[in-house]
């Protein structure tokens, strides 16, 4: 067998962190320490972490800013719920039904990711950001306005309510959304899917495809010059990312009986929330996305005692973290006086480094 590289070890540690977290939560639950409220947070924590991992593939690895990932979650949620609600009372085995629902939600999100990617990925930077935001809002708005049902005359779809003829069922009831999705999502399944999402994204990053995607991020023109097909790899990254976000959406919709396409769940602010997780976890750092999601999702919940002040504190903490982590002045300060700089100096004193000739030039 191959000897384990540093990267493989890093990836394994990521899976390890998730598994340890899972075991600890299960033990706490067995010990009866977890409150009902905290238990209720575990599945959402997982689907936001999955969405963050997905978004990091686009933002961190591909280097394009997407503000529409809540839209892909929305597609995954609605398509899978539609399927599960239809089959719910048919005696179809629940386990298989949920498995198929996961596949369906993932597939439709991937399909939309692909279709939306074709026009969107031609744009650059902030234009791409605003167009993905627009697509996310369009998806949400349409799903909040659509009526979809069947009766004796067949399937009907419209943007206003309609009467059903005889036996039938309204599947998507406009702003009321989909009622009665079976709550199949469990913490265990959510963790398995999180591990799967990590597996897919981390393995892509370590592969030929991942290198091609990162080369586009670092320098599109040079990537083209060494024969990387830009569109192909942008589409690959975007579609896979949308698919994984869709899976997160399936977990979401099967964690609640009432699914509505409202701003609280699928608006651009949700995309932004996930982006905050990605950036604070480290752009391009997959493991960081998971850890940041856990901390930032749990943190406001922990501060519940502070009631109205908690989101205020959250906002201030967010701003301060950004300033400390990213402000050039703060970085220079850390490089001069920080702990790692101190350690590096000590090391340097022991082993003098000869090569100081670094520095960028250009013409």
């Amino acid at each position, binding site marked *: 067998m191959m000897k384990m590289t540093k990267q493989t070890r890093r990836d394994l540690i990521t899976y390890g962190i998730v598994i340890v977290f899972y075991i600890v939560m299960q033990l706490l639950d067995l010990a009866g320490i977890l409150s009902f409220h905290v238990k209720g947070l575990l599945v959402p924590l997982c689907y936001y972490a999955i969405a963050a991992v997905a978004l990091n593939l686009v933002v961190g690895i591909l280097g394009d800013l997407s503000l529409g990932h809540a839209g892909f979650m929305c597609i995954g949620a609605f398509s899978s719920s539609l399927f599960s609600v239809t089959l719910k009372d048919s005696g179809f085995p629940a386990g298989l039904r949920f498995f198929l629902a996961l596949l369906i939600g993932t597939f439709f999100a991937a399909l939309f990711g692909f279709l939306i990617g074709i026009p969107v990925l031609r744009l650059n930077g902030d234009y791409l950001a605003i167009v993905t935001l627009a697509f996310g809002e369009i998806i949400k708005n349409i799903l909040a306005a659509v009526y979809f049902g069947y009766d004796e005359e067949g399937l009907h779809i419209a943007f206003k309510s309609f009467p059903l003829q005889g036996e039938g069922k309204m599947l998507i009831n406009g702003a009321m959304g989909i009622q009665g999705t079976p709550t199949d999502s469990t913490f265990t399944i959510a963790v398995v899917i999180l591990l799967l999402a990590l597996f897919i994204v981390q*393995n892509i990053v370590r592969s030929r495809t991942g290198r091609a995607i990162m*080369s586009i991020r670092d320098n599109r023109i040079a*990537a083209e010059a060494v024969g990387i097909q830009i569109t192909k790899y942008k589409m690959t990254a975007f579609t896979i990312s949308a698919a994984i976000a869709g899976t997160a959406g399936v977990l979401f919709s099967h964690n609640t009986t009432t699914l509505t396409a409202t701003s609280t769940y699928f608006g651009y602010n949700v995309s932004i929330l996930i982006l905050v997780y990605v950036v604070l976890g480290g752009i391009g750092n997959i493991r960081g996305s998971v850890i940041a999601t856990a901390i930032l999702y749990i943190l406001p919940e922990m501060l519940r005692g502070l009631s109205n002040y908690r989101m205020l504190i959250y906002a201030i903490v967010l701003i301060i973290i950004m300033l400390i982590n990213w402000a050039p002045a703060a970085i220079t300060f850390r490089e001069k006086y920080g702990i790692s700089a101190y350690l590096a100096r000590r090391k340097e004193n022991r082993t003098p480094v000869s*090569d100081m*000739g670094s520095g*960028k030039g250009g013409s």
Partner: protein
Amino acid sequence: MAALLSVNHLSISFGGLRAVDDFNVEIEKGALYGLIGPNGAGKTTVFNLLTGVYKPDEGRIFLGDRNITGLSTVEINQAGIARTFQNIRLFKDMSVLDNVKVGLHNRYPYSTLAGILKLPVYFKTEKEMDEKALELLKVFELDGESETLSKNLPYGKQRKLEIARALATDPKLLLLDEPAAGMNPNETGELMDTIRFVRDHFDMTILLIEHDMKLVAGICEALTVLNFGSVLCQGQTSEVLKNPEVIKAYLGD
């Protein structure tokens, strides 16, 4: 024998300005050819035309027998032209090794799915890529720094890495855009040896843009001088550099 690269009547205009006007050149296989001229003469534009970054208004480009005019950058790279850039364009947040492995991308294929599932073909191909990449890095004495992020390399080594990455695509023709820019005389001397070595070791044909006359005179066998977008003079290096018009173009009136 047909030349490796033949360019006929190549022209391009940018909004009225004729940046390259009726450019012709024939480069034999294995040649070390220089493209020189004052700033703004259109040298880099010629490179951009050869590599498909710009589409020419007129003229044709042949690589061997193949007409590559109007092909995309990616297709031209696959046809066998690789280049470096005047302002270094590395994949700066990727390791030195990965930079070269991106260059190897099209020569060592396996599917995205094989990569995700880490199928045996993934391990086998990655191993081959690592070996090939390290072999290339060794030529440029970069194999000791294969895990370093390319942005953390010193300037001279960044230039070398860019050449290594270009060679990784297995080109027939290598275009170097001011390889010695920003280098001190020592580094330039070393670079001259490297370029000669690349030509001999890889049996490469090299076309380079350079301002450093010592380098040009030292390694180029033939030259084309561009001035205001058109060819001022063409021929053996020693003769071209004696040409009074060339001297005038460089020193000004």
